[in-house]
């Protein structure tokens, strides 16, 4: 096992000791079930498009709760010192923290597969799994990007609250603000800018479109924030 997976494993386990993680998971699943219940009616389309869009909204408030402690807590309790004086590199730590948090996100997402199974049972004549698969791919990519942004914010402060608020603000700005603006009358320039944001790119996935440009967008920016976080950890060497 590599050092990054050792750190990831510890991080994932620690979520199961934390009440906040359970609360976040419960809120996410309950909110998802209400949306699904609303859509699961005779005559409606047997799909999960609404649910996927709703999930992104939920993640804007839930990912900050999952990511806030990743590094802020290490700074505030001083455990970072024990961690960094073991023979591990900054990138081991960042990758490990990210993977641990991402694994918890997947655990949180897993029960929603049940909805796909329920749809498959009741759909008439037949369910189209294409948009569901691409929708899941999209939500997993959005989760990865959100977590890497959260991890970055968590590396900048000792306070978990500050980390959570900062993460929520950034996620709000790249997801909900563009959604709100999309209904407004805007110039062509602003339209182009909005098309670059998470909201616009994500909705394509829930429609069943897998665009390599969108795929690259999420992977690239996830990597960028992980890279920034590594630099923040290294920065103690320049101070």
């Amino acid at each position, binding site marked *: 096992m590599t050092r990054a997976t050792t750190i990831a494993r510890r991080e994932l386990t620690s979520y199961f000791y934390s009440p906040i993680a359970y609360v976040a998971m419960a809120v996410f699943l309950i909110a998802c079930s209400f949306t699904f219940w609303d859509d699961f009616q005779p005559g409606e389309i047997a799909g999960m498009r609404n649910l996927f869009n709703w999930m992104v909204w939920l993640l804007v408030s839930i990912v900050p709760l999952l990511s806030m402690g990743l590094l802020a807590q290490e700074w505030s309790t001083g*455990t970072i010192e024990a961690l960094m004086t073991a023979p591990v590199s900054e990138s081991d730590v960042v990758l490990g923290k990210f993977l641990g948090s991402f694994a918890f996100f997947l655990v949180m997402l897993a029960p929603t597969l049940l909805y796909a199974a329920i749809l498959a049972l009741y759909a008439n004549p037949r369910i189209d799994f294409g948009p569901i698969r691409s929708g899941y791919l999209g939500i997993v990519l959005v989760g990865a990007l959100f977590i890497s942004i959260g991890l970055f914010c968590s590396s900048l402060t000792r306070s978990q609250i500050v980390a959570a608020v900062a993460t929520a603000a950034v996620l709000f700005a790249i997801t909900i603000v563009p959604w709100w603006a999309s209904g407004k009358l805007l110039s062509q320039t602003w339209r182009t800018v909005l098309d670059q944001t998470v909201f616009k790119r994500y909705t394509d996935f829930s429609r069943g479109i897998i665009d390599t440009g969108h795929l690259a967008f999420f992977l690239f920016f996830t990597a960028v924030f992980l890279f920034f976080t590594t630099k923040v950890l290294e920065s*103690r060497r320049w101070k």
Partner: protein
Amino acid sequence: MIAVRELTKAYGQTLAVDHISFEVPRGQIVGFLGPNGAGKSTTLKILTCYLPPTSGGATVNGFDIFHESEKVRETLGYLPENCPLYTEMKVREYLDYRGRLRKMPRAQRLRRIDYVIERCWLGPVHHKTISHLSKGYRQRVGLADALLHNPAVLILDEPTIGLDPAQIRETRKLIRDLAGHHTVVLSTHILPEVEATCDRAIVIAAGRIVAQGSPDELRASRRLTARVLVECRGPRSEVQAALNRVSGVSTVEILDGQSADAQYVVAALRPKDGYDIREEVARIVIQRGWPLREVRLEHATLEEFFVQVTANQAMARSTQEVQVAS
């Protein structure tokens, strides 16, 4: 084993560590002694590769702390100040995680975990969650973690702080037992700790080394500042003049209000290097016919020595800063 050359660390304008150099041979226990804020922790943080030095350098086990940081970290065990731990984990779980992080093979890891649990008296709590442990047990978990991979070098930042007297004695004994197999650097601001555990002490104040040597050597150096107290009944000025003529006496000071009896004077004599002046002083006083009550050699305590050297240093530093500012 550890070689430090001209190590300097600046936080902004303040020098936390100011060009210090020292060496620690293999198997020795060295105490880093100094008041709070003297630069002890900073030096240890640099040696463990947590912080980089501003200038100067150091090698641990032959590896450079800056260029071969990972090699250095493999060979050393570190107990940070205040012993930070993941409190939601159980003791054995935490040690297992630390062992995995150091890539110890499974069989060796399990054997070493059993060993350090026994060695650090963690047996009764090894299945407990760390947040439920007392400060003393937590400190031992930190120590167990530092020992886990059987490192050649152990760096312990205030290993006995927060422990009760019985635990302090146990911990010191444990550290003593480690000598020979491990090279140990520990920091403390408690003097008896150095006497009890260390082969050598390095006294640091305001970022500089102000004294170093074995506890015996330090004790020898404090004998230099020892004084002889003489209590006799005689005219004040004559007593002072007579004692001043004794060979080997460098200064004589009459202490007021020291004697319960107003007729008696108490004189404090500073002997010159290597002189024992007690017999000569007694002879002179008797010869003059002054009733003699006491001739006593008073060792300056190590405490006093410590306060003196560190206070001098701090004062020198603050005048320097004033000069720089003006």
